[in-house]
């Protein structure tokens, strides 16, 4: 294609002092004016602002620009903004190029001279490429009007309901046999102390009965393919050995099963049957057979359950099934795990039997839990004193550097519940009280009124080695009351560890499947910490809840709703723009060797038998350019990143002048 002579305009952004504080933007603009084909250059405080964008539009018209360069932040941030501004002035948006002089320059260098020199180089490189830019046509494809939600905790449930209520189909995939997540394990919830089950169960039931929600419990994601608007997902539905269409969920099989296994829902504090429900209010209520615990799978005998099953729902030959779903958007809401309380070994978890975790306490305090809601020690006695130890593994560089954000508050909740049910003295050992949410500080005040003892000092260790008579038979906490500057030994009957929230163990695997990044703490990384809190590095994949970082239920639910709204806005838009920068074949150069076919990850390259040349299917091509780098005849052009453009950048940066 023939172009008119390039007329390039360069706009240098100060980004307040973010760029201008290190890079001399005047020099950059001045240098740009001397570059080939540059007919206009200026600098401005905030190029991304409305007046900044207007500057671009006006200059295009006034100076008859046919190429535009903005030297500012990362193209990953504002390329879409400026492409739009370019298009508004009637120029093809692909005739725009960005020079990243913030993330790659002013923010990472301290030497002003070197940084300015580098910024000029980066502009030079962009100018060189711009000269060879070509207009490209945007293409659109339809969005599959269905959303996949992975993880049925309160985040996933909230997102599912919001989307379904808006009229869009949802597939909710949960790997456990019931939805509900961690919240289902909780007894009461701070700061209002509503009963967790009472507020969660109705939502769970609503999700199960909603005509727009398809619940796939006991299922996991095998594979994700495709791109925004058009994902294809393969889901493994694990064998349950009970036909859900036939089962009436009467539960007689559970009563009759003679075999037991440890209950994970009860945190190992009690047993459940080999055929079981995760918990009494489980949704769906249909039991599953745990193959590892069931005797029939061990020795071919038993089937005690089946004898009593009136509708004959057992299917002993049941097998895992793989189903395929096409969806337009994905919400990942896989939640959190807790740090192994044995890791900070000084607190004696696993060795001292009355040292328990917070989530264990939730179960102990719950009426359906292992002690039927009685707060008792392992010996079955009501404790005279209880210590709650904050920050176990959190805010600790030996374990998790971050704050888990919920422990201070649930420690207060526990203190209240213990006070309510027992006569025990309750101690909180804390570093700082972090009660930041609505009504949280007030809850703290209420607990002070209730006479809970607060010791400002992190518990150093727990021991059962008594030094005095008063310590005999007790668990003793060693800690400094830092406000007094005195080291205390506090004897108690029960110790509750507020152990840190962590990413799920398989977070790396899930991140890879969905193309999500992870922050240094291991949780999933949002696209922008302030402005795009639910988007990810992959378009069309969103985050909700604690998989993104520790948070309480109010924040989790809010994020679930936020993820629902961005997913919905994508679905409602109906179409998405797909890569215009695909690859193309120059027929005259192609020798028909087909080497490109082998390297294309999307099998987008066909073969035109008549002409004996390769042919690229633009709707399959994603524009990675691997074929272009491989073609021995240089017959493939990777549009927008073609050889001419990249070599021009290299020459601009490195060729010696003169």
């Amino acid at each position: 294609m023939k172009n008119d002579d390039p007329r390039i305009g360069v706009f240098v952004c100060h980004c307040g002092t973010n760029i201008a504080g290190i890079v001399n933007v005047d020099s950059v603009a001045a240098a740009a004016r001397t570059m080939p084909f540059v007919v206009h250059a200026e600098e401005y405080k905030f190029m991304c602002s409305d007046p900044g964008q207007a500057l671009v539009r006006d200059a295009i018209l006034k100076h008859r620009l046919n190429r535009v360069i903005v030297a500012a932040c990362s193209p990953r941030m504002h390329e879409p903004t400026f492409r739009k501004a370019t298009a508004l002035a009637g120029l093809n948006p692909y005739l725009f190029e960005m020079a990243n002089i913030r993330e790659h320059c002013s923010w990472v260098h301290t030497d002003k001279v070197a940084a300015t020199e580098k910024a000029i180089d980066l502009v030079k490189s962009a100018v060189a490429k711009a000269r060879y830019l070509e207009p490209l046509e945007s293409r659109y494809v339809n969005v599959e009007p269905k959303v996949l939600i992975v993880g049925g905790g309160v985040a996933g449930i909230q997102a599912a309901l919001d989307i379904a209520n808006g009229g869009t189909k949802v597939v909710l995939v949960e790997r456990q046999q019931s939805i509900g997540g961690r919240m289902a394990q909780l007894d009461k919830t701070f700061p209002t102390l509503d009963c967790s089950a009472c507020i969660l169960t109705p939502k769970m039931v609503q999700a199960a009965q909603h005509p727009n929600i398809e619940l796939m419990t006991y299922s996991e994601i095998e594979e994700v393919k495709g791109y925004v608007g058009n994902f294809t997902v393969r889901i493994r539905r694990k064998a349950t050995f009970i036909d859900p269409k036939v089962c009436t969920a009467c539960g007689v099989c559970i009563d009759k099963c003679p075999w037991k296994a440890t209950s994970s829902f009860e945190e190992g504090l009690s047993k459940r049957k080999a055929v079981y429900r995760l918990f009494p209010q489980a949704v769906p209520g249909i039991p599953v057979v745990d193959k590892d615990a069931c005797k029939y799978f061990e020795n071919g005998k038993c089937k005690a359950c089946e004898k009593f099953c009136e509708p004959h729902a057992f299917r002993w030959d049941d097998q895992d099934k793989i189903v395929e779903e096409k969806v337009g958007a994905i919400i990942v809401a896989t939640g959190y795990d807790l740090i192994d309380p044995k890791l900070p070994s000084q607190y004696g978890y696993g060795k001292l039997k009355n040292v328990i975790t917070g989530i264990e306490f939730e179960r102990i305090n719950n009426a359906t839990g292992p002690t039927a809601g009685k707060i008792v020690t392992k010996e079955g006695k009501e404790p005279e004193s209880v210590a709650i130890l904050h920050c176990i593994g959190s805010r600790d560089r030996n374990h998790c550097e971050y704050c888990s954000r919920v422990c201070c508050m649930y420690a207060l909740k526990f203190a209240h519940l213990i006070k309510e049910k027992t006569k025990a003295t309750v101690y909180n050992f804390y570093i700082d009280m972090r009660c930041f949410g609505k009504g949280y500080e007030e809850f703290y005040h209420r607990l002070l009124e209730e006479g809970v003892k607060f010791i400002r000092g992190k518990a150093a260790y727990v021991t059962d080695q008594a030094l005095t008579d008063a310590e005999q038979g007790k668990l003793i906490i060693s800690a400094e009351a830092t406000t007094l500057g005195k080291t205390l030994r506090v004897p108690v009957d029960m110790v509750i560890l507020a152990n840190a929230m962590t990413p799920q163990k398989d977070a790396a695997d899930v991140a890879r499947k969905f193309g999500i990044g992870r922050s240094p703490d291991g949780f999933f990384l949002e696209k922008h910490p302030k402005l795009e809190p639910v988007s990810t590095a992959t378009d069309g994949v969103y985050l909700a809840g604690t998989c993104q970082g520790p948070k309480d239920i109010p924040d989790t639910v809010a994020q679930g709703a936020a993820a629902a709204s961005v997913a919905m806005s994508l679905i409602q838009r109906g179409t998405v723009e797909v890569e215009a920068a695909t690859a193309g074949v120059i027929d005259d150069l192609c020798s028909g060797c087909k080497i490109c076919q082998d390297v294309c990850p999307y099998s987008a390259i066909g073969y035109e038998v008549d002409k004996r040349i390769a042919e690229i299917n633009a709707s399959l091509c994603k524009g990675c350019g691997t074929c272009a780098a491989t073609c021995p005849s240089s017959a493939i052009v990777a549009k927008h990143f073609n050889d001419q453009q990249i070599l021009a950048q290299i020459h601009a940066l490195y060729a010696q002048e003169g």
Partner: protein
Amino acid sequence: MAEQFEPKIAVLCCNWCTYAGADLAGTSRMKYAPNVRLIRTMCSGRIDPSFVMTALKDGADGVLIAGCHPADCHYINGNHKTMRRFPVLHTMLAQFGIERDRVRLEWISASEGDRFVEVANEMTETVRKLGPLDWKSRTAAGNVA
């Protein structure tokens, strides 16, 4: 004291991981040697060995090729192709008598801003020690024009 040699390092990298990793280094305000300049491609699989040779010929003293970790390529497996091309590139360099360490291949993910900084600094130091590449005198002494 003699002024120390400031090597020119070209970074050819993919948009999705390494370019984003360098962005993260920026948003995290990490600091590294100003000697590197990034040239963005969509995937590391786009990086033609001739780009590397051109950069060296033009005047770069070292080239870093970088992309997503082996299983993480945004385009499934473009980076496998990069990996396979790399030994060929080293053979070419050897023919020209160019030190291996001048051209390096690294996998740097979008969340590894710190890794990007580390590699950028290491690369600058290594090449600083090797000294200017001076392509002309090498090819004159070598066998290929």
